[in-house]
């Protein structure tokens, strides 16, 4: 069973990140998730929106970012972020960020260390993050 908690399409601008973060956290709070789940959700959303703005808004593909949050199977929240860009070749991208001195490129690695699952669509312009709320929600 899927329950849509939040859905919005916003222009791909930096100043639109915070309002979406606040709305999503408010929507998720209705589920009374733990502190860790909310932290994971906030950081994942910020990273994915930043990626969408930085990489998904090329000159030819200015546009909106679609953000959705759902509750699935009664115990896991699913965050989806999609931009209108050409996507990226995630199958051949190294997300390990093995060099800790790099100034960029650790966003997906950071999300992976927090959430139960992260995946991309074939085109690479949509990311899906799954955060399990725990057995008490099942």
């Amino acid at each position, binding site marked *: 069973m899927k329950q849509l908690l939040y859905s919005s399409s916003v222009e791909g601008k*930096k*100043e639109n*990140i*915070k309002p979406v973060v606040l709305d999503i956290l408010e929507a998720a709070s209705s589920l009374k998730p733990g502190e860790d789940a909310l*932290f994971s959700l*906030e*950081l994942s959303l*910020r*990273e994915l*929106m*930043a990626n969408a*703005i*930085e990489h998904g808004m090329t000159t030819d593909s200015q546009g909106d970012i679609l953000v959705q949050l759902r509750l699935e199977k009664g115990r896991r929240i699913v965050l989806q972020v999609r931009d209108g860009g050409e996507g990226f070749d995630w199958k051949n991208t190294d997300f390990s*960020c093995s060099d*800790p*001195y*790099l*100034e*960029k490129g*650790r*966003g997906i690695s*950071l999300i992976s*260390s*927090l959430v139960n699952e992260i995946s991309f669509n074939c085109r690479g312009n949509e990311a899906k993050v799954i955060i399990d709320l725990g057995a008490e929600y099942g």
Partner: protein
Amino acid sequence: MKLVKKNGIDVLEIQGEIVFESSNDIKHRAKEILEEGDLKKVVIDLQNVPFIDSSGVGVLISLFKHQAEKEGEIVLAAPTKKVSRVLELTRMDKILDIHDTVEAAVGEV
């Protein structure tokens, strides 16, 4: 952002989130302050930074490398709970000197 002296040590106080939206401005302003004062050892006071993302971590790495190039030093102090968590997840706690309080970072305790 404000530079103060505590126990004879330069302390750079940062206020607000260090995230994608703000990270470039914070990085450039911090480097300006480091350059203007020709500062060597600098404590970055994070107690008023409620959140940091990977862009913010990049800012700290950039400042660390900037100081290392001129044989200076960056020390982090008083990270909030969420900031600490990000620093641990990105293994910054392994390469940066991090103290629980500003007092500890400036050697008062």
